[in-house]
């Protein structure tokens, strides 16, 4: 009976140290940014307060932050699930692009009652994401090709394909710009304070969290990620387990794009997507579990929205936001990886 108590104590300590390290990392990054602002002769205090103001200053700001966090959180989940099984999915940006394109294609081409059309569009988005991740999966399992490389390549394939579509067959007629038709008003996601895609995303993430923690499938992923050969030797069908995790990730990435298209941008165009796929990876590494990913995504989105306000109010370049987003993660991972903290948080904290 003693063992679980010890492990719980360790878990508690680990959680505390994780949040502690993170807060310190964020503070360090803010100090760095404040220093840079002072260096160029700006007012650091005004800049940082404008930033905070931009995130929590008004109801509208909070709504914007939540909407901005949604694709990041879903992409984070698309990284996290296969990551558990030892598969690095860097392709969320591509899944998102292709998923959005698919949703726009379906909604601007066909006519159906809206209650049928919106789910259909999201399903097609998910399929698009799965289609794009499938080659990486097959090559990894059958040929041993490194998935980092293939998913990065397929990102570019997806981005170029979207550009080819919006400058070719799917370009808005008479438009000078590389942009698709707008999704008809009927087929856009209904808005209840925020568009319903946000609630869908939260539902997906919470469900994923439950599945990873409380089902056999989640356990299998952990086993596979921990030691693939042991999992195989114990009779687990490792290929099938990995395939499920990876395809689900592709689907989630696709849905992230579908939600963004149906709920926020209503079209795909040149440069329509921010690097949500890559921010999602940062969110996944900070959050480490699906619910943690939500909070990490909110933080990253808050920095983005706050940074815009900072630039508008004080003229300090919003480019600094990239530093605020990445430096805490760098520090967090660096500290987490050092020998000392590995010793302190032994059980289940290999990364």
């Amino acid at each position: 009976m003693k063992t679980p108590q010890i492990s719980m104590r360790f878990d508690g300590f680990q959680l505390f140290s994780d949040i502690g390290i993170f807060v310190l990392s964020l503070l360090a990054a803010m100090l760095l940014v404040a220093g840079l602002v002072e260096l160029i002769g700006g007012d650091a205090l005004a800049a940082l307060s404008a930033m905070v103001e931009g995130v929590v200053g008004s109801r509208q700001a909070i709504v914007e932050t939540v909407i901005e966090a949604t694709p990041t959180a879903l992409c984070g989940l698309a990284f996290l699930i296969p990551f558990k099984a030892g598969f690095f999915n860097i392709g969320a940006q591509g899944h998102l692009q292709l998923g959005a394109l698919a949703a726009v294609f379906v909604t601007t081409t066909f006519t159906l009652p809206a209650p049928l059309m919106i789910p259909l569009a999201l399903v097609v988005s998910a399929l698009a994401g799965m289609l794009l991740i499938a080659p990486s999966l097959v090559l990894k399992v059958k040929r041993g090709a490194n998935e980092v490389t293939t998913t990065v390549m397929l990102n570019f394939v997806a981005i170029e394909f979207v550009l080819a579509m919006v400058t070719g067959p799917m370009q808005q007629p008479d438009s000078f710009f590389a942009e698709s038709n707008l999704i008809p008003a009927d087929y856009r996601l209904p808005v209840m304070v925020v568009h319903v895609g946000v609630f869908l995303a939260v539902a997906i993430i919470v469900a994923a969290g439950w599945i990873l923690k409380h089902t056999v499938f989640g356990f299998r992923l952990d086993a596979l990620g921990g030691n693939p050969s042991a999992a195989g030797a114990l009779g687990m069908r490792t290929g099938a387990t990995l395939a499920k995790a990876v395809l689900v990730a592709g689907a989630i990435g696709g849905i992230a794009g579908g939600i963004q298209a149906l709920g926020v941008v209503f079209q795909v165009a040149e440069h329509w997507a921010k690097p949500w796929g890559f921010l999602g990876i940062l969110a996944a590494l900070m959050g480490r579990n699906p619910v943690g990913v939500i909070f990490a995504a909110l933080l990253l989105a808050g920095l983005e929205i706050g940074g815009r306000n900072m630039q508008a109010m004080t003229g300090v370049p919003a480019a600094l936001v990239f530093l605020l987003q990445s430096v805490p993660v760098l520090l967090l991972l660096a500290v987490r990886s050092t020998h000392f903290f590995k010793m302190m948080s032994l059980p289940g904290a290999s990364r």
Partner: protein
Amino acid sequence: MIFDPEFLLSALRIATPLMIVALGVLIAERAGVLFLGVEGVMLCGALFGILGAVYTGDPWMGMMCGLAAGVVAGLVSAALIVWIPTDQVVMGLAMNIAAIGVTSFIFRVTADDLQQMSPTIDWTVPAWATDNAVATFLFSVPPLAWLAIILYAVVWYVLFHSAPGLLLRSVGQSVKAANSAGLNVPWVRTVALAIAGGLSGLGGAALTVGWVRSFSDDITAGRGFIALAAVYFGRWYPRWTLFGCLLFGIGEALALRTQVLGGNPHLYLMIPYVLTVCVLAFAESGRAPREVGKPYEGR
């Protein structure tokens, strides 16, 4: 005729930065480091290259600044992924985002000085050569392309025909064996990353100083990843990597000519990526340096 000298020159011009960066990636990978932060390092080289060229008025000084910035960024990568060590993939991606922040910020601060274009690095064709088509072509090849080709010859020789090259490759193939043989794995990787960073920075500077002659936010736009693709395309051999870079250059040069060719430019831009995935699919696996991507924790 599509494949006229003009076309070849434009393909070569596009391929030159890729060639230099890919060489850096090749060295890092041969030492067993997955150098995903190359995009960020290249971006730093691109910015500091143009700053050096504008402030000193000499494009070659700009190239040196790019090189120096790359070495520093490479050493930072080494500190994070060799000495701590953290996960190579994750750290690389986070560093790319950080690099966008740093370079965009410095660019905003110095934007007033960067209004002008940097001085050109290209040779003018001397008067005696203008009548001779071959001589004209050779003088029109950007000097940096010649530099890149020389660098390939040097790296090929050092990697495959010298003792230090053998040490470097052995670290990438098996850290255990290298360690037993008395090699200091972290130091070999640190040196490899310094060289890789330097070449990536030089390649970034080749993009801005040697070609575009100005800077804009995120100007590399994924070229670091293309260089990575070229290395995988080339199965970690310099000559095939060089070929891969030229293929990307040709793809992009074709995309610039779609008015003549017909078709959608973005479909041409897609070809090299699809080809890389196909190469990964059909090439025998197991050729890759075995230790790529694995942190060395044997200290």
